[in-house]
């Protein structure tokens, strides 16, 4: 019944002239709802309609007109209804029921004259007494806001309206709120700080401001000149029956970019996880196109990319190791996360430096009105956060921390684990300060720390430390700028002190200093430019082995530090050609300077790089440029909307990556290192083309999409057999340049609202690699294509949440995927005096398929608004079916025979409980 849009064919043959000459309209309207009918006419003619929506909900227009004036059309359209209309001189059309309005006063109204006879055509004035109660309720609907200095007439041309959308209660910005302009059929989304910029013609407009969980607001705006319109949205509390809040509802259809997944913290919190703690990375893993090697693995593999090809940003800070405890928990405190955006295909030009994806984690702003907080207790972790104003309505802070208390649990374990220790914590500080209407300052600090030793005398530890300071400034209404400076650090160390003679510390760290400037310039309603500059100064210490303690005889082995400067300039334009067709194009030009002081080995060309083939060793002074790589990266996408709920998009994307993680073990290793590109290791490059189809159903409450992609990767690093990565002074001899191709299809069905919501996704994806380095004598698998470690072709994930009532909901997720590839020995032979194992082609076998179901119940306390604290419980079971999903398969020699074993991380159902309190 709502399929009217499919039948809808609409074309205007005549365009509007001056208001004096009646506008002639042609078109065919098939079962078009009244409001849509008016919107169509408003969009193409100077007419502006005033009506009460509720009076029109049963009105549908079925009409074919050809070169007819509006009055005729309306008369035809309203036959059989009690609707009346009136048109005034300013082309305002008033729709009423039963009685028609008289838009102009009688000619002699201001010249009262008893003599003047009552004319025949005297119209009866209808005066409606509106009482104050009604007036208030309809205030926003009917109130007219003025933007810019009021003038008598609207000026010609375009003006810029800018403003922010904030929560009325806490003053927090509302990100991704949609500001929809009726007359333009256009929609802008607020940015990270709640700001939006609209470019529209001067005149009267109707703006709809919507956001998830907020009450919709409607503004009638008279725009005279450039100006500001700030919006405060009230939290939406559904009182009685479920209300469909369709904010963001058309974002997936409307935005130009494709391959973007967005998760709000509310959605993340509904995904059941191992220990009941809301987990950002686990939730991201349920999205189509995102995979992981195994359960306890840190890495995400996005569209066939390796784990190091993802840029993980937290409020702009790069987090190198986003996981705690071997990847069991993600390192982001869910209490302060606002939302997560994953760019799989159309990566905005402002981001760069990684091939596969950008995971942009936005943190909340503190409450600017009152001190609030929350705390949670789980089986192994607990968390606490407090936030509030430092200066009311101007400055806010958030302090948040999480910690584990697993150590005391370990003491209860059997003796063999007696010496095990595991602990981690993370802490965040966020400060936001509004200097004035055009200047905002924010500071983010983050630290995470992990330390564990599992039944051995070796202690592993790693830390992230990030600081970021950002200043946001509006130069004009059209030009917005953001400047940030930050420092990111990641380090790990491994040490053992059991044997005093052999006691050692093995350490590694990355330090980077970031500078960013990003500008957004709204040229006019069709063009929005973004441009800016990024720079990263790297300083890596790729590994050092030092003795620990006085008695230790360990020979120090230190790999010289690496320095580099990665910088980039970018420019992108969002070009709206028509309301249906829009383009987004960007170019990013990146430079990479590898800097001294360092000694570089140069190898004979055309032969395998080997200690034996070094032809020259050259030493560079500190700060000297050793070599430079640079190149352009292109980001392009286009969207054509066939209707408001159906669009097709296509995109092309190219990326360069100058820092690489080196890890050639199949399993997790806490000693994976990062390496910068240098004269021997070229930057990785990736190109991706993708196409997507987006269709929303049932009043945008069901989103469906299909995306296809094909990706080529150049100079990906694979490893020679027997490669040594830790403490290797000439690592280039152990890596091989590899090319890769990845392709796949991602199907998604998402229900965003209602008692039952969630999504089902199916991903088909392949990632194949091929050694194309001509100097490699024995390429992997004879130079044929072979699947990467994380090639898992089929993946089905279903995530669902069913809200039984307002205090009780149940969540379930199910995931199935093909087992990952492994290399197995297929035989044994005797050669050169010894038994030797024969391996099959690399990754030619797969471990058994993976299947898991999790279940959780969320029980909220009462929802009384004025209560001091609110609490909730999460109870659930991870891996409900208890399936022993193999994590890895390996083989060891036992009594002269080689035996295979499979290892499962979570071999049975794991129950969990979590308690949260909010104040």
């Amino acid at each position, binding site marked *: 019944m709502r399929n009217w849009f499919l039948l809808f064919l609409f074309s205007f043959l005549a365009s509007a002239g001056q208001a004096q000459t009646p506008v002639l309209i042609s078109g065919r309207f098939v079962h078009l709802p009244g409001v849509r009918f008016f919107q169509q006419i408003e969009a193409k003619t100077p007419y502006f309609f005033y009506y009460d929506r509720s009076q029109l909900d049963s009105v549908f227009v079925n009409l074919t007109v050809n070169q007819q004036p509006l009055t005729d059309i309306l008369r035809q359209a309203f036959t059989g209804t009690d609707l009346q209309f009136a048109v005034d001189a300013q082309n305002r059309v008033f729709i009423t029921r039963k009685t028609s309005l008289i838009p102009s006063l009688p000619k002699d109204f201001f010249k009262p004259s008893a003599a003047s006879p009552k004319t025949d055509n005297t119209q009866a004035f209808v005066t409606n007494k509106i009482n104050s109660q009604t007036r208030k309720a309809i205030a926003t609907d009917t109130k007219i806001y003025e933007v810019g200095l009021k003038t008598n007439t609207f000026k010609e041309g375009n003006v810029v309206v800018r403003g922010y959308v904030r929560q009325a209660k806490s003053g927090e910005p509302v990100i991704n709120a949609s500001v929809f302009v009726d007359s333009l059929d256009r929609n802008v989304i607020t940015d990270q700080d709640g700001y939006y910029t609209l470019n529209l013609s001067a005149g009267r407009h109707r703006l709809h401001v919507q956001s998830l969980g907020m009450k919709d607001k409607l503004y009638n705006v008279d725009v005279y000149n450039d100006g500001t319109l700030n919006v405060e949205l009230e939290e939406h509390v559904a009182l009685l029956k479920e209300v469909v809040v369709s904010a963001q509802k058309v974002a997936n259809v409307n935005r130009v970019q494709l391959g973007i997944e967005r998760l709000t913290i509310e959605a993340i919190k509904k995904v059941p996880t191992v*220990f009941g703690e809301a987990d950002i990375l686990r939730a991201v893993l349920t999205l189509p196109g995102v995979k992981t090697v195994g359960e306890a693995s840190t890495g995400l593999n996005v569209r066939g990319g390796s784990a190091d090809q993802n840029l993980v940003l937290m409020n702009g800070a790069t987090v190198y190791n986003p996981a705690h405890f071997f990847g069991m928990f993600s390192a982001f405190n869910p209490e302060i996360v606002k939302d997560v955006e994953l760019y799989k295909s159309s990566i905005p030009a402002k981001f760069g430096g990684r091939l596969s994806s950008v995971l942009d984690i936005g943190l909340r702003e503190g409450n600017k009105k009152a001190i609030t907080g929350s705390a949670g207790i789980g089986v192994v972790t607990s968390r606490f956060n407090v936030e509030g104003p430092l200066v009311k309505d101007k400055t806010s802070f958030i302090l948040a921390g999480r910690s584990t208390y697993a150590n005391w*649990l*370990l003491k209860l374990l059997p003796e063999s684990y007696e010496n095990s220790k595991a602990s981690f914590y993370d802490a965040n500080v966020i400060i936001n300060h509004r200097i004035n209407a055009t200047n905002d300052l924010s500071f983010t600090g983050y630290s995470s720390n992990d330390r564990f030793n599992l039944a051995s005398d070796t202690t592993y530890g790693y830390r992230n430390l990030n600081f970021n300071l950002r200043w946001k400034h509006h130069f004009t209404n059209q030009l917005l700028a953001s400047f940030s400076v930050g420092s990111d650090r990641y380090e790990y160390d491994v040490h053992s002190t059991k044997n005093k003679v052999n006691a050692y510390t093995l350490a590694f760290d990355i330090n980077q200093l970031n500078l960013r400037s990003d500008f957004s310039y709204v040229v006019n309603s069709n063009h929005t430019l973004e441009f800016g500059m990024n720079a990263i100064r790297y300083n890596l210490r790729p590994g050092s082995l030092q003795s620990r303690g006085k008695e230790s005889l360990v020979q120090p082995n230190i790999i010289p530090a690496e320095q580099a400067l990665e910088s980039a300039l970018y420019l992108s334009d969002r070009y709206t050609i028509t309301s249906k067709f829009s383009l987004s194009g960007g170019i990013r030009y990146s430079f990479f300077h590898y800097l001294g002081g360092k000694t570089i080995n140069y190898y*004979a060309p055309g*032969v395998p790089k*080997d200690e*034996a*083939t070094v*032809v020259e060793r050259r030493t560079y002074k500190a700060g000297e440029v050793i070599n430079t790589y640079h190149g352009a990266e292109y980001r392009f996408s286009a969207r054509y909307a066939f209707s408001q709920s159906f669009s097709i998009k296509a995109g092309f994307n190219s990326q360069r990556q100058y820092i690489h993680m080196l890890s*050639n*073990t*199949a*399993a997790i*290793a806490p000693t994976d290192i990062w390496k910068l590109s240098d004269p021997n290791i070229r930057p990785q490059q990736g190109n991706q083309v993708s196409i997507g189809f987006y269709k929303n159903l049932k009043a945008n409450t069901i989103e469906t999409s299909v995306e296809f992609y094909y990706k080529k990767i150049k100079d990906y690093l694979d490893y*020679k*057999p027997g*490669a040594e990565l830790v403490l290797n002074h000439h690592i280039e001899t152990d890596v091989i340049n590899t090319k890769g191709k990845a392709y796949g299809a991602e199907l998604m069905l998402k229900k965003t609202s209602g008692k039952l919501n969630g999504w089902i996704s199916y991903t088909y994806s392949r990632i194949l690699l091929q050694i194309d380095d001509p100097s490699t*004598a*024995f390429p992997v698998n*004879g130079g044929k294509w072979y699947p990467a470690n994380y090639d898992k072709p089929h993946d089905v994930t279903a995530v669902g949440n069913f809200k039984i009532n307002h205090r009780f909901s149940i969540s379930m997720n199910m995931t199935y995927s093909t087992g990952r590839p492994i*290399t197995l*020995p*297929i*035989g*044994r*032979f*005797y*050669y*050169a*005096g*010894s*038994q*030797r194992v*024969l*391996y099959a*082609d*690399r990754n030619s*076998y797969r471990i058994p398929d993976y299947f898991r179901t999790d279940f959780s119940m969320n029980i909220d306390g009462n929802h009384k608004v004025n209560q001091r604290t609110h609490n909730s419980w999460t109870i659930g079971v991870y891996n409900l079916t208890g399936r*022993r999903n*193999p*994590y890895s*398969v*390996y*083989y*060891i*020699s036992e009594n*002269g*025979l*080689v*035996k*295979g*074993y*499979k*290892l*499962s*991380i979570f*071999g*049975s159902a*794991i*129950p969990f409980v979590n308690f949260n309190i909010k104040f």
Partner: protein
Amino acid sequence: MRKLFICLFFLFLLASCRDEYELPLRETDVSLLVVEGTLNAGQGMTTITLSRTVKVNDAATIKPVLRAALTVEGKNGGNYALNETGNGQYTLAQLPLTFGEEYRLRIRTADNKEYLSDYIVARQTPAIDAVTWKIENEKLIIYANSHDASNNTRYYKWDFDETWEIRSYYTAFYRWLSGTTIVPTISAYNSRCWKYAKSNTINVGSTVQLQSDVVSEAPVQFIPFGSEKLGVRYSILLKQQTLTREAYEYFNLMKKNTESIGSIFDPQPSELKGNIKCISNPDEGVLGFLTASSFTEKRIFITAQEANNWRFSQYCPMEKVLNEPDSIRIWVPGYLPFNLDNFNGVEYYAMAPASCVDCTKRGGDLNMPSYW
């Protein structure tokens, strides 16, 4: 409840779950032909060994390929058949090869499959300049030194034969005959033996990085402290041959692949592709890389004194056994007598574990090698 919880949690976290896993093996994959050997282009015997790969969990050490026909074919003429000498070995006392000429090997197995190697150039190997050794980090390291004035060799491979003398802890002048009979011997009985070993690692080296083709101290063998090899006197016969670049890379890869892989954290292995193909079935893989060259050799001796008074220790407790059959029966043959003595007039045999008395029980050979 809490206890259960904790156990559950940590069981998975730490102990996880380990189940036995059947390797998905296919019969066809596990029986590849393995060809090992060098066509000796200089003086001396050519030996080619044929075997087949076995299943990973097979009990057999080596599965020789019998009744195959092997022919060496010269590109410019000449066909030389090898003779089967058992155990998968095929030999010819002297191949009349010419340096610089190309040859290949044709193999026809008993199941009528035909294998053919690529043509390979017969190369001349330079002499070994010296075999040197050093004691470092609790081991004795033996090095190869060589050079090629024409700068042509570049890639080297070394194999070696080791010989070492062992002596019994106790010198025996008595021996056990049978039952409980012990008889005296004229000279020391089985107290001096020689043991032999062949190299069981792949030793290759290259001088590509050097301006001149000089091998200086390429390590070929490591003997850990306490090894019996240097208990008395040790000798190593180092054999050197030259390789092509392809052969060098093949052996280097095989070494990395099979001598340093085993556990879950180890790097991924890769497959080997040699220069022999199955022409009856091109999809069938063949292991091994056939080479053709002359060999040069050099032997050195190292005595325990030279090796900083090398210490080899054996645990050899002595038992005093009454010279009467019932007592002797308990100890022989695990223990062997080496002396007859008396204590306060009571006669007894001094006995010790067999390996402390009879060097053949330690795997030794009684015949002194000619070069000793």
